[in-house]
């Protein structure tokens, strides 16, 4: 480890992603990024205002000044068009990063993602690679209602040919973003809006952006590996993205109640780190899966089924899923809060297993 690699500081999730993109763009001329208002104010160079936004979550703030309009490319609102263009660019030698602003918009461009990005390598007998990175935002808690608050990584995980990752804090955001850009397969990075600092209930954002130490230097977190931020022996809590935070908070409370809790931060949904899950559950013999996606045909079902099938003889209790209910995301604040998996629900589930 070089000296500079040791330099670390607390930065926001947004800054962590920004650093990863900047580093890759600086070091690989084939990397470029496009999306709606990824710079903002495009074509207004004459006003010195190209970087009005830097993306709706400011993930790309400042990049156009460093890399120019060609490589930090504002697009019209044409997700099928520009994600398809990303696929074509990837097939012909570039490494595009493409922004799908909210995951709920996948329905206007899903064809390009699942029929082209995911399938070309296979359909063409391995002769074409599609090293595209799609970044998108997920999650409720921001008063954005049913179309702008979904999670949906489960439906992308469904598709062979796609890789899906979902960081849980600034440290994992930077490392997974770096790994995604360098990966030769299509990778979708799901960034939770609350982790990016968007929230209408300030207490939900408490500490979120600063929960982890982030090295200044570039590093990768391998796609397909989960982390175990808290080790324990009584029960395993599995979180993904924002729900990892929920699990950590629940673990704290459960520890105070005298339980030894293990928390898994899934990070990668496809490929999924089955080994870490199974190993943990074989040890703790109890598991609660905490996920914000809709419950049916979801990553939570997948993990529950995996555990049931692979660790059947080790389980002291059936797996429990704490997920969003089978309902859409409502606008009204109390309803929206009720929609989200919460520390309270996790603690309650865990206690009722362990009692």
């Amino acid at each position, binding site marked *: 480890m070089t000296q500079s690699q040791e330099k670390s500081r607390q930065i926001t999730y947004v800054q962590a992603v920004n650093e990863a993109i900047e580093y890759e763009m600086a070091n690989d001329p084939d990397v470029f990024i496009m999306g709606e*208002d990824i710079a*903002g*104010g495009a*074509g207004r160079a004459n006003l010195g205002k190209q970087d009005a936004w830097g993306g709706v979550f400011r993930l790309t703030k400042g990049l156009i000044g460093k890399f120019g309009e060609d490589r930090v490319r504002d697009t019209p*609102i044409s997700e099928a068009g520009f994600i398809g263009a990303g696929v074509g660019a990837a097939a012909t030698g570039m490494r595009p990063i493409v922004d799908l602003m909210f995951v709920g918009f996948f329905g*206007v461009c899903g064809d390009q993602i699942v029929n082209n990005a995911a399938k070309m390598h296979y359909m063409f007998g391995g002769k074409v690679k599609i090293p595209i990175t799609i970044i998108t935002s997920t999650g409720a808690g921001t008063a*954005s209602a049913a179309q*702008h608050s979904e999670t949906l990584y489960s439906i992308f995980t469904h598709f062979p040919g796609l890789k899906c990752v979902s960081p849980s804090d600034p440290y994992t955001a930077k490392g997974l973003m770096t790994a995604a850009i360098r990966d030769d397969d299509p990778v979708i990075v799901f960034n939770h809006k609350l982790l990016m600092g968007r929230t209408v209930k300030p207490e939900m954002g408490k500490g979120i952006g600063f929960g982890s130490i982030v090295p200044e230097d570039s590093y990768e977190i391998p796609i397909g590996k989960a982390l175990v931020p808290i080790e324990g022996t009584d029960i395993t809590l599995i979180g993904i993205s924002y729900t990892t935070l929920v699990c950590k908070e629940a673990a704290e409370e459960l520890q105070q109640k005298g339980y030894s809790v293990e928390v898994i931060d899934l990070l990668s949904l496809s490929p999924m780190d089955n080994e870490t899950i199974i190993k943990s559950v074989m040890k703790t013999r109890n598991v609660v899966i905490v996920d914000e996606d809709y419950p049916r045909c979801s990553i939570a079902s997948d993990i529950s089924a995996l555990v049931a099938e692979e660790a059947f003889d080790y389980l002291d209790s059936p797996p429990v899923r704490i997920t969003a209910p089978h309902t859409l995301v409502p*606008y009204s*604040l109390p309803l929206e809060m009720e929609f989200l998996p919460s520390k309270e629900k996790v603690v309650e589930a865990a206690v009722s297993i362990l009692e």
Partner: protein
Amino acid sequence: MTNSKKTGIDKSTALWMYQTMITTRKFEAECRRQADQGKLRGMHSSIGQEAVPTGICAHLKDGDQILGTHRSHHHCIAKGVNLNEMMAELLGKATGTNKGKGGTMHIADINKGMLGANGVVGSNIPVAVGAALTAKLKKSQNVSVVFFGDGAVGQGVLYESMNLASIWKLPVVFVCENNRYAEATPFEYSMAGQSVAKRATGFDMPGINVDGQSVVEMYHASKIAIQKARSGEGPTLIEAMTYRYQGHFGADPPLTYRTEEEEALYKSKDCIRRMKSYLIDMGYSDEEKILEMDEKAQIAVSESVKFADESPFPNLEELHTEVYVKYE
């Protein structure tokens, strides 16, 4: 031309149009205050664009349907959605148009002919085609009108919808509110050819460009389009040139991507101020009566806040209801 147009708007319609626009503007201003107090959780303001739906809705009847976007408060008010219920919706209350489940981007009241705002850019355009298809199949003589922004012109579904409406000669009017920006992106950058109206070419339907900051111009242009639709002669695409005075969302500062000069230019063509002059020129009203209308608007808006404030939040069970009509 100007003259014949002027004589085309009768007094009660003209007064209705002014009242509608001023009510909208005051409603939006109130929303901003509610947001600043943390009660209203973010919205896209329609201030500056009031003339577009107002000029159009002047021609619409009860069974006609309009459809909107993420920025749709002005559409709702123009089509007669109840202000109290709108404000209650924006505050997430059980008495809201949508029982608090939809919020600012999804206000709907089908009985009033507001078939819904929609948060996905372009998404409502084919839905409007479907409403027009119903009208045709049921021979109801109803029309549907869909509003969308200049940004939606980037979405392919607009062209699919124009094509369907054209080959089936459906009673639908496509209204693009070209407020020059999609978020921070100017249409001069994102739109090849830089004209929405021209995009109708090749779809066998008229595409017209209208001063959307003039409710009088909007009235006349849409009159023709709606008559055409209602009489079975098919769709029209209207590009209404307009401007949003505020940021894209919430208090987002627009000066990061546009200039003070530009803002001043468009604000100098303000639709409400121009309508005021028109009312006076036409002898339909005077300064005093206009003040009364302004006050009436303010009272209605204040009442809507009171109504919303006094309304309860939905019960938590509401999270789970109305996902389906029936599910078991």
